[in-house]
């Protein structure tokens, strides 16, 4: 069942993101979401979820300043993605530093492109929240369950923040 949901999410992402940035994002996230769908052990789910959160965080930070009106939603979503990454075990890892210096040369996206990204992020976080919620129900370990629930809540928050956007 989670696999079906995530496949649908990938399709939505692909449909929403026709621009080059969106396509790049779909390529990366779809691969991770496939892993997430295939993961059966809680540890594997959390590990894949951590990677998805990290990818979401990278994308959100890269584009949070592109459109001033989208700034609040993107910043808060980035905070939620960072919290979700920490909840799923990112706090244990030595994370690659997300440097904005690398993307300074890229021209900022226009409002429509930013909205596309928001839709894609909303769809991805929706699938992520669903997978983590399902994982929380099946987790035998109390600590794992708490991690999954907290991460699912952060993913749901990202979905809420990005979900108000519809493509122009």
């Amino acid at each position, binding site marked *: 069942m989670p696999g079906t949901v995530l496949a649908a999410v990938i399709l939505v992402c692909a449909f929403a993101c026709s621009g080059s940035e969106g396509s790049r994002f779909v390529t990366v996230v779809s691969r991770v979401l496939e892993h997430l769908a295939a993961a059966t052990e809680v540890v594997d789910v959390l590990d894949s979820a951590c990677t998805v959160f990290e990818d979401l965080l990278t994308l959100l*930070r890269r584009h*949070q*300043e592109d*459109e*001033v*009106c*989208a*700034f*609040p*939603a993107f*910043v*808060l979503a*980035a*905070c939620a993605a*960072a*919290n979700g990454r*920490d*909840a799923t075990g990112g*706090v*244990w*890892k*030595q*994370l690659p*530093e*997300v440097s*904005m210096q690398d993307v300074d040369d890229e021209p900022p996206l226009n*409002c429509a492109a*930013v*909205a596309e990204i*928001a839709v894609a992020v909303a769809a991805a976080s929706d699938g992520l929240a669903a997978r983590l919620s399902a994982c929380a129900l099946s987790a035998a370990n109390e600590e794992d369950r708490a991690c999954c629930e*907290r991460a699912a809540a952060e993913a749901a928050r990202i979905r*809420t*923040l*990005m*979900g*108000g*956007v*519809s493509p*122009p």
Partner: protein
Amino acid sequence: MTRRATFGDFATSITRHLQRLQWATALPAAGERANGAADVADLSDAVHAMADYAEDISGVLDAEYLARDRELGAWVRAATRVRQSLETAEGALPAAPRPEKTVGANRPRGGNGDLRAATRWMTVGRDLLHTHDAIQTGGVTADGSEWTPVVCSAPVACAILRELGGWARQIAGHAYRISATGSCPAAQRRTVSAVGKLLSQVSWAIGEAQERRPVRQGHLRLLHAIPVNAVPDPCLPASGDSVVNLSVGVISTAERLRMATRRASVEAPWSRQLTRETLRQTAGCCAISASNMQMMLTTLATDHDEPWTRFSATIAVAADAADRARAAWLTVTESWDPITTDTRGAMGSAGAEAAALALWTGRLAYANPDWAPDLGPLHSPRSAGEFAGDTDQLRCAVDAAHHVCNTLTQVAEADREKVRVSSMTGRLIVPTRSLPDGYDIPYRFAPAPPSSTAPLLSSYDQALQTSAEATAAMAGIAADLQADSRVITTARAAARADPNAWAGAPIREMPADLAGSHGRSSQTASRDPQLAPPGPVERILIELDVASKPDLEQAAAIDRAADQLILRAATSARPVQPDPDLGRSAGSAELVGHLIATNGSVLSALRPHQPPARKAEFEAGG
């Protein structure tokens, strides 16, 4: 949203009651009856209330003089003389049994209701100031509030003293009238007259200090802006709130955020709510608030009506400063990535309040009446016409932006301190594998070394600096527009004992206690509004609602002529009658009171004399 009481509310009430007292006729008001004992008891209560203020102020000024400001000498001397005079007056007016205790509650009591009301507001005003006291119990000092350093500052102490001088002058006139009405025995009248003279001395002492080092208009404004120490009620914006309501909400929420941040700062070494999540959300929401303010200011700078053209350049500078603050706060959120706290998951109150501020500022900046961060990017900002339809609206918007920038500065300062303390107490940790090879720690986490915390602290430094720049830019606009938020600048200067606190315009406007009861002071152009209260004739015309400038000028001329005549008479009478009692009747007491008020350097013949210590005489006479 209910506005909190401020000291200014009570000072205004005191002034209003004392004006009525000053202009009251010698006859008791309707429902009251002549009662000398009640009059004296009311006077005694008023003197006690003022003496309490004097004692507080004396302590503050002494400490400030010794610790920081040697130029306070004139005010320190004035405070000492005021305290001594009021103590003498207190001694001369023993706490007589109150008439309420001796007469039935349902019978009309004597005395003056306005003086009682003014005394009550004096007491409440002092209580309000004391709500900011830092309380020490069992060796633990509970912090007061962000206003505590302001309340304990020299400029505010001097402003209180100046208010006290105005009250004393008005009550002195009342005392002269009591002593002249004949409703009490002769000995009591003499004592009351002596108290009136002491109160006049209080007024003169303060006037002298005011001449040497004038209290500034900003100091008085600051004093009046001091609110009662209480947490503003939490509230969320309603759909379609006006700009004025939104500005009030922004200011109130900003204060809640400052309070939450201060509290969290004190609890940093042990609080479970000090988490990376809280600090990251706080930083993110501060970035959003700065962005919202930048958007609002940019709109105001570029899309304005003709009257505000002269502010465009300064508003554009403030918008740039807000944008730099936004970028700096964004860096703070990212600087938290490699470091975490020893407690995780909890969201502290500072994070929640910061989110509320982001929501309020967004409602102010965006045209959508239901704006929220989760509505996405498709929203347009408000037009400048909605902010600046008139001067009041523009002031409200500037007030809000100034408060937000000031709050960002304070949050940056407090959070940087939290990070520093957390680092020192080992509460900031990093994954062991992120440490250089030289570290051999058999755990998953280790206390963050300075090399790890330095970038984080540096990002807070940058946020602090840019937010302070934005605050300074807003302060300039607030000063130009004469917005209420000017008190932010005055408060900071006063609390830090900044010598610049004494810069700025001295009080030039007619003091509130001397202004007409219906705000008609500007009509009485016939006399110097800085110095002179209306004389008896002019006052009667004002009370009769006469607004004719020639009539008022003629009345003022009559009053001046009377003053000159009395002065001439006093000069010539002095050798013959060295100790004239000019307070024998209500009429003469009022004329002399006015003469004294309008001529600071009045002839010594008219000056009140030192009161004899006649408590025993008073009791015998009463």
